């Protein structure tokens, strides 16, 4: 064969191989991969070491001097960290403001403390890692209380509860758990993207690496309502207690923790949390402990 002939053959073969990989697959190989957000409890569940927990007992401290509560009152503003891409808890509006369930809860907490509120966008894994270096005061981000997290963060009582669900891409054709061709969680390989919302986006973009993901029920509902190609399958995997968190490595905050916990308790009692939940979660009230 001539040199040109060989070159053509190599180029053609390369193109063919590349093309074959790029063309949408006929189907139906479902990889045993499940997508979750980084540093989420969903990842813990897949890895088999989820340790859901309750908040430690909270008591009113003797004095508030030197407490973060005083700093916040003096600054006149409560700085709250958010994940900017977690609808419907916290997401961007075209005018640049953030709205969502978490946003509203955070705003009400600040009102309860008598200060303004300021939201800071931070990657989720930075929030859960602690060591906030004083860049923000509290996290109102639908954070699940877990034993490992309690070592570095202080938690209030939950302000709502959501179930964690499995979801599948519509192209996979799976509609119930028994249709999943591998054991969960043991037979599954976890793949992480920065947030669970990214997992949905990935499926929507047609990427073939996974067909399953785990996220909170509210996120799935929101995505389905927005027309994303996923379906919720099966029963909740587990219930999450979602609370406000404060960095333990920051300044002393027993008083702030107590105050916020008290405000949340009031919001439970006077129904405002229920109202917010129904507003954001399609009429559902997720602020009551789910009956199993």
């Amino acid at each position, binding site marked *: 064969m001539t040199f040109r002939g060989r070159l053509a053959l190599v180029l053609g073969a390369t193109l063919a191989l590349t093309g074959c990989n790029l063309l949408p697959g006929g189907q139906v190989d479902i990889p045993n991969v499940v997508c979750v957000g980084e540093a989420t409890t969903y990842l813990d569940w897949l890895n088999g070491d989820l340790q859901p927990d309750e908040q430690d007992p909270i008591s009113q401290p003797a004095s508030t001097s030197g407490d973060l509560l005083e700093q916040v009152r003096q600054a006149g503003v409560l700085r709250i960290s958010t994940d*900017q*891409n977690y609808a419907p808890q916290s997401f961007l509006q*075209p*005018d*640049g403001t953030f709205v969502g369930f978490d946003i509203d809860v955070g705003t009400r907490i600040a009102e309860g403390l008598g200060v303004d509120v300021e939201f800071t*966008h931070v990657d989720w894994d930075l929030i859960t890692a602690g060591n906030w270096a004083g860049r923000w005061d509290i996290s109102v981000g639908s954070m699940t209380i877990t034993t490992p997290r309690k070592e570095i963060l202080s938690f209030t009582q939950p302000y709502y509860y959501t179930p964690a669900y499995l979801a599948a891409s519509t192209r996979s054709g799976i509609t119930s758990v028994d249709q999943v061709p591998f054991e969960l969680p043991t037979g599954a390989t976890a793949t992480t993207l920065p947030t669970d919302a990214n997992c*949905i986006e990935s499926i929507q973009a047609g990427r073939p690496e996974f067909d399953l993901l785990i996220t909170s029920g509210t996120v799935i509902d929101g995505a389905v309502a927005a027309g994303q190609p996923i379906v919720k399958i099966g029963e909740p995997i587990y219930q999450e207690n979602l609370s406000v968190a404060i960095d333990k490595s920051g300044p002393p905050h027993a008083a702030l923790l107590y105050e916020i916990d008290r405000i949340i308790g009031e919001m439970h009692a006077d129904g405002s949390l229920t109202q917010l939940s129904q507003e954001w979660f399609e009429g559902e009230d997720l602020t009551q402990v789910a009956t199993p």
Partner: protein
Amino acid sequence: MARFSELTGPTVPAEPEVVTRIDAGQRRRRFWFRVQFVLVWVVLIGLLVGALWASDKIDPSFIGTWAPFILAGAGLTIIICAGSIVLATGLALVGAIARLSPNPIIYSVASLYVSIVRGTPLLVQIFFIYFALPQLGIVLPALPAGIIALGFNYGAYMTEIFRAGIQAVPRGQREAAEALAMPEGLVMRRIVMPQAIRIVVPAIGNEFIAMIKDSALVSTISVTELLWRASSVGNQNFRTLETLLIAALVYWLLTMVFSLFQERLERRMARSDR
């Protein structure tokens, strides 16, 4: 016909007609070249936009809703670049002189700065200033951290550019200034530096253009500039194609505008050198 070179005297004959025609022809060619250039760009870009439009994968109403928010990020991008440029230029001027200093301590400090900053990735430096410094007790808000990281980084590269520029100024310039009894400070400030700066304008202009693009990296520390907005909006609404196209377009326009300024500046300098 007498040879043109033999024609001297008070009456200079008019140029032969062919000279005018050659000149006109050249001008016509240049004009049409430019017309075709613009046409090709318009056609290619138009084809691309048209293909995207026709494929129905792009949602124009989405773009309309979110474009203002995303484009507003360009303002912050410009601010970041402006701040970094100022910082980088200041560092570079000092650094260049330090790198030319006979004082071993000054020289070594400057060389260490240049070596470390040029030897580590910009992204690592951004992360370091924002995430690692707090562990040492230095907590910087995102925007200043980004400007400092960019400014420090580009300062090192520009140090070497300025140093080369200073060394490129002909030695005779310095000698003439010294022969006029000018002290070192005056020599550097009035004679060498101004010429060095003119020499390095093209290189510095390129650095600024690179900086416009590198400013996108500060989106990683939550500075709500152009890329951060495009990325957030795109991810949130599952429409990253539209948002990233917008961002890319804006960066492209920014660098083009800057390139035009630079070209004009270079042309003006070349004119005064002729």
